[in-house]
């Protein structure tokens, strides 16, 4: 089976809203704020709604950057993105003045230095951006004396949080896809036939979507095909390989029962039409890999147009 690393990534942007925006602005100014409920309970980190009563919360009060570890665990091999690169403790920390505990990392030489009930205080990141990561981590011991030494609570609201998410996968092709991709690397397009409905799928599927059974019988398809439908691409976009206008078409290879998307070159975009006969234009052999991009594009093959009835049921 073929497999390859797959590393999707995206920078999520989330609006904070009025309450979390003030909480985040506090972090940028090295202050931790809690949301106070009608019962006087102070929730840290600030929550928008009281978890018990579901009442919307709006009053924020500053709490101490020093608190008590309520429970902890040891991260012996930190994962990328976590607060510290060397082994550290995760802890739920109840800050002085808060009635709930917040999760963060505690820097410690080893698990033997940790215990429930120990006192820790926040260490601030040198560069802060209005996010929970503005607290670099907590460290053991009492924090700086609060009297007169804590920064003022800012009258500010952070608008947005940008969270880059990058994950790593090993993506596996199905047995049918693996055959198809290996054959492409040899310059052949191979589909597979459903044993029940006899339809030929290209690319082949793990299961026939009509009958729910694996497709098994290999069918080699030629280079000639019919355009079932198409569109003219006029819109430029990042990463575009070809200067617009050009044609993106559904290509039905002779002998296949399902078309795939490809590009049509070799004639003016205005000449492309439904039923037009085309053939695959392969890249030079030395560029072939396990990829449909081995076919650079499709180009008119000069045959008369296919009659509509011959491809109507593939539209």
């Amino acid at each position, binding site marked *: 089976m073929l497999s390859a690393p797959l590393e999707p990534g995206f920078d999520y942007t989330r609006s904070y809203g009025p309450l979390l925006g003030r909480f985040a602005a506090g972090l940028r100014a090295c202050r931790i704020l809690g949301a106070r409920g009608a019962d006087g309970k102070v*929730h840290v980190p600030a929550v928008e709604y009281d*978890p018990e009563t579901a009442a919307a919360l709006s009053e924020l009060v500053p709490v101490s950057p020093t608190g008590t570890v309520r*429970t902890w*665990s*040891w991260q012996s091999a930190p994962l990328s993105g976590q607060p510290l690169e060397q082994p550290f403790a*995760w802890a739920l920390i109840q800050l002085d003045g808060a009635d*709930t505990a917040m999760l963060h990392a505690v820097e410690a030489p080893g698990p033997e230095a940790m215990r429930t009930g120990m006192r820790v205080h926040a260490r601030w990141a040198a560069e802060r951006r209005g996010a929970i990561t503005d607290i670099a981590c907590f460290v053991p011991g009492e924090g700086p004396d609060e009297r007169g030494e804590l920064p003022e609570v800012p009258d500010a609201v952070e608008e947005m949080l940008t969270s880059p998410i990058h994950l790593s996968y*090993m993506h596996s092709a199905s*047995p049918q896809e693996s055959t198809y991709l290996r054959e492409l690397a040899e310059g052949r397009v191979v589909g597979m036939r459903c044993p029940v409905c006899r339809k030929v799928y290209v690319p082949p599927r*793990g299961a026939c979507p009509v009958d729910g059974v694996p497709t098994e019988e290999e069918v080699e398809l030629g280079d000639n095909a019919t355009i079932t439908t198409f569109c003219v691409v006029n819109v430029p976009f990042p990463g575009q390989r070809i200067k617009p206008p050009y044609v993106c078409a559904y290509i039905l290879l002779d002998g296949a029962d399902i078309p795939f998307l490809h590009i049509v070159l070799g004639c003016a975009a205005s000449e492309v039409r439904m039923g037009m006969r085309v053939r695959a234009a392969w890249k030079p052999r030395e560029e072939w890999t396990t990829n449909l991009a081995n076919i650079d594009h499709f180009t008119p093959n000069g045959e008369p147009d296919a009659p509509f009835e011959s491809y109507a049921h593939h539209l």
Partner: protein
Amino acid sequence: MTDVAVVGYASSPSVRETQGTTNGVEMLVPLFSEVFAETGLRKSEVGFWCSGSSDYLAGRAFSFIAAVDAIGAVPPINESHVEMDAAWAAFEAMVAIRTGEVDTAVVYGFGKSSAGELRKILALQLDPYTLAPLWPDSVSVAALQARAGIDAGAWTEQQMAEVVAASRRKARANPRSQLSGEYTAEELLAQPRFADPLRRHDCAPVTDGAAVLVLAGAERAEDLCERPAWIGGMSHRVETPHLGERDLSTSVSTKAAAADLDIGGVRLAELHAPFSHQEILLRQAIGLDEAVEVNPSGGPLAGNPMFAAGLSRIGEAASRIHDGSADAALAHATSGPALQQNLLCVLRGER
């Protein structure tokens, strides 16, 4: 409203890594065949299909749509999906049958956890403002809960090791289990800690797998199954996503779900506890006494296919009703970090 029963169940072997794709097709095709053969139900008769899976686990968008190929959805089917364990898909299907909308449903869950870094991916289910940016992985979060319970006197490391030893022992009789064997608690306690206080064996393995459940209303159930497992009650509750707001040494949501149900006569329970301490926690929260056998299948510690393991708890419990070895059984499923959300389902041999 009509009564609903579990009339069929099939599950794939729990394995560390399958060669198949993340859309589950290769795992699901044989399971659908198995439940159709077992029940005599035909694909065209299925009133509703409902699945549980996750695009984050698959690393691709709309992976559950690709899974529909395994059904053969022509002509078009009545279908739904939840981005959580398929036990919640079973809840949706149960409601669809009870309300008379359909008379049969096939529920399935699948996950290929081996494709990515499971414990890291699960950090993305946390609050995106105050938790997820720190990437607290699922094992570390569970370890916080394990210590909270140890500190509170709710369980001990010795008891946790006994849970693992029992799981491994019972899993020897389950050919689909991933981990099994004979171990003493002392042998297990001699192992080094992995995410202190958890040892590796306290954590369910990373598993690829799938499960399929067939549900039917009262008019169809006895045609499809000799001894249907009637759903006596099903309830699920959720708690705040903010870990520090919860008492992690117990489960308020499980207690509330249990209070909704009559669990009288239950002598067997399948609990979806991916960490050893959670089995003890759930036993306490539900109020199961020592006479109740827990996880005769070996449970999630013997194999934990994400998004299918909760559904499998219902299936395993129902199987004990089907084969006549139990008259009443309880199934539990969880979703979210440190047992944030919990579902309970009572199954009975009598309507």
